[in-house]
C-alpha cells in the first residue's frame, strides 16, 4: 500500500499519480481475509488502431465475475483458569474470529471432553462485552446463533465459558472443555452449507476452515474449536514478610541497649479461594521488652489487651503479639502490622 507522498523531492506528476493510486486501492478495503464475497470483479478492455494515419474509434469490451464466499472461522483459547471448589462463574476465555470473506454468525457449544473425570456445573456461554476476561453481570448470555449477531470479516468477539466448580473436587484435578463455533448464515439461524460441485454465476459457498481441537471437528466443515482446561486450586497461599528497623536513642541505627526495634509484618494472599481466619502470632524476641501502645494494624492503633479489636500484646499468648486478620483473598489489600520493642 502506498501512501501519498509528503517529501518535497517528489515531482508534482508523481504526487498526482500516487494520489490516484491511493484512490484506486482505497476501494479494496485491505482486508486480511481477502476480497468480500459478492464483489463483482470487472475487467474492461480497450482497443485502439488506425487505418493508415486515420485513428479509429476506441473499442470497448469487458468481462466480469462474482467473488464467492469463503467460510472460515478461527477459535483460540485465551486462558486456562484455576477453579476453587464451589467457586461460581469461573470463566474460561476464548476468541472467535471470522476469517472468511463474508459476514457470518456462529452457533457456539461448550463440550466437556470424554476423558474428564468430573465436570463443571451450570455451564453457560457469555460474550465478554468488556473483554475483561472475567464474568461480569454485563456480559451477554448466549442463547442461539442470533444472540451475538453477525461478525463481519476479520471481526472477533471474546466468548466465556462460565461454570460453577463442584464442591467435591480436590486440588490438582483438571477438566478440559472445547468451545466449538459452527458457521451460521448471517441474519439467520441456518447453519452454513457448502455448495457441492454445482457452481453458479452467483455467490457460491466454500469451507476452508482448519480442523479444531474438538472430537469430530474436521477441516473444511464450517466449524472450528479450541480447548481449555480448568485446574482445581484449593489452597490460598498466605505469605508474610517481616522487616526490622533499629532506632537508637542517639538518633542512629545501632542495636544498643535502649534502642527501639520496629517490626513490620506484611501479610498477603495469593491464589484462588479464601484464606479463612488468618491469625498472625509473633513472639517478642528474647532480651527485648514490648513498648506499650505501639501495636498497629494498617496504621491504626490497637489496644494491648485481648478485647474487641483485632490484636493484643501477650493477652492471647503470653510474650507473643497476636493479630487476627480474619478472612483474606487475593483481592484483599496487604495487611500491615507494626509494633515496637526495646533492647534490654
Amino acid at each position, binding site marked *: 500500500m*502506498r*501512501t501519498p*507522498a509528503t*517529501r518535497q*523531492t*517528489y515531482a508534482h506528476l*508523481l504526487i498526482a*499519480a*500516487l494520489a*490516484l*493510486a491511493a484512490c*484506486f486501492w482505497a*476501494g*479494496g478495503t485491505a482486508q486480511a*481475509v*481477502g*476480497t468480500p*464475497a459478492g*464483489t463483482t*470483479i*470487472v*475487467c*474492461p*478492455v*480497450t*482497443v*485502439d*488502431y*488506425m*487505418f*493508415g494515419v486515420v485513428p*479509429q*474509434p476506441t*473499442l*470497448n*469490451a*469487458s*468481462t*466480469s*465475475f*462474482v*467473488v*464467492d*464466499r*469463503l467460510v472460515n472461522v478461527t477459535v483460540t483459547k485465551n486462558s486456562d483458569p484455576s477453579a476453587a471448589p464451589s467457586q461460581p462463574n469461573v470463566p474460561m476465555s476464548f476468541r472467535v474470529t471470522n476469517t472468511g*470473506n463474508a459476514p457470518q454468525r456462529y452457533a457456539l457449544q461448550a463440550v466437556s471432553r470424554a476423558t474428564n473425570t468430573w465436570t463443571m456445573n451450570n455451564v453457560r456461554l457469555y460474550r465478554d462485552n468488556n473483554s475483561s476476561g472475567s464474568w461480569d453481570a454485563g456480559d451477554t448470555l448466549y442463547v442461539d446463533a442470533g444472540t451475538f449477531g453477525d461478525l463481519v470479516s476479520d471481526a472477533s468477539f471474546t466468548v466465556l465459558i462460565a461454570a460453577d466448580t463442584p464442591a467435591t473436587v480436590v486440588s490438582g484435578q483438571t477438566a478440559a472443555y472445547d468451545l466449538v463455533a459452527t458457521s451460521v448464515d448471517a441474519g439467520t439461524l441456518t447453519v452454513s452449507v457448502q455448495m457441492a460441485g454445482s*457452481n*453458479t*454465476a452467483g455467490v*457460491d459457498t*466454500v469451507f*476452508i476452515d482448519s480442523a479444531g481441537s474438538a472430537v469430530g471437528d474436521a477441516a473444511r466443515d464450517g466449524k472450528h474449536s479450541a480447548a481449555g482446561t480448568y485446574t482445581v486450586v484449593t489452597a490460598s497461599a498466605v505469605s508474610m514478610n517481616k522487616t526490622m528497623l533499629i532506632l537508637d536513642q542517639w538518633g542512629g541505627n545501632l542495636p544498643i541497649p535502649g534502642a527501639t526495634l520496629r517490626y513490620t509484618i506484611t501479610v498477603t494472599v495469593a491464589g484462588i479461594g479464601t484464606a479463612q481466619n488468618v491469625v498472625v502470632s509473633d513472639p517478642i524476641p528474647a532480651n527485648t521488652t514490648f513498648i506499650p501502645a505501639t501495636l498497629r494494624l494498617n496504621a491504626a492503633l490497637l489496644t494491648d489487651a485481648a478485647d474487641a479489636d483485632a490484636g493484643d500484646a501477650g493477652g492471647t499468648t503470653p510474650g507473643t503479639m497476636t493479630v487476627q486478620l480474619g478472612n483474606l483473598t487475593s483481592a484483599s489489600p496487604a495487611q500491615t502490622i507494626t509494633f515496637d520493642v526495646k533492647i534490654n
Partner: protein
Amino acid sequence: MKKEGRMRQGILVAVAAMLLVPAAVWAQQKKGGIDIKTVSEVEITQTDAEGKKEVKRIDATTVTVAPGQTVVFTNHFTYSGDKPATDVVIKNPVSEHMIYMDGTAEGKGARVEFSVDKGKTFAAADKLKVKSADGKERRATAADYTNIRWTIEKPLQNGDKGSVSFKARLK
C-alpha cells in the same frame, strides 16, 4: 449460465437494449473491422482416464472464485477488412481486488508494457519505477502494475486472429 433458446435470447437482448443494460458477461463489438471479445477464466487441472494431466480453462462465472484464486484474462481479437489495421493497441487495467502475477502477460507478436500510474504512462517491466513511502525510488514489482498494454507489432490483415492474456490473483 444456462444456454437459452435463440428466440428467448433475442427477446432478452432486445429487453436489455431497451433498458440500456449490458446484455452479457462478456461484450462483443463489431466496429471498424476488429472484433474484440474478452473472457475471465480459471485454470483447472484435470486428470483423464489414462492418468494424463490436462490444464483446462473454464469460465470464471461457472467455477468457484474466492480470494487467492488465479484468474486468466484473455482478449481474443479478429480482424476483417480490405485494408490493414495498423498501430493496434490493446489495454487492460488490473482490476480492483486483483494483483497482476509477474511474467504472465503474453501475446504472440505483441509487445507488452505496463503502467504503474493508472495507464498514463507505459514502459517495459524492467524500466518501471515507483517511489515508496520513504521517498526512495525502487523498481516496480508486479503488485505495482495498474494497467497492461499490448502493442501488436505487425499490421493486421483480413482474417487475422490472435489473443493477448495475463493472469492475476484475487486478493
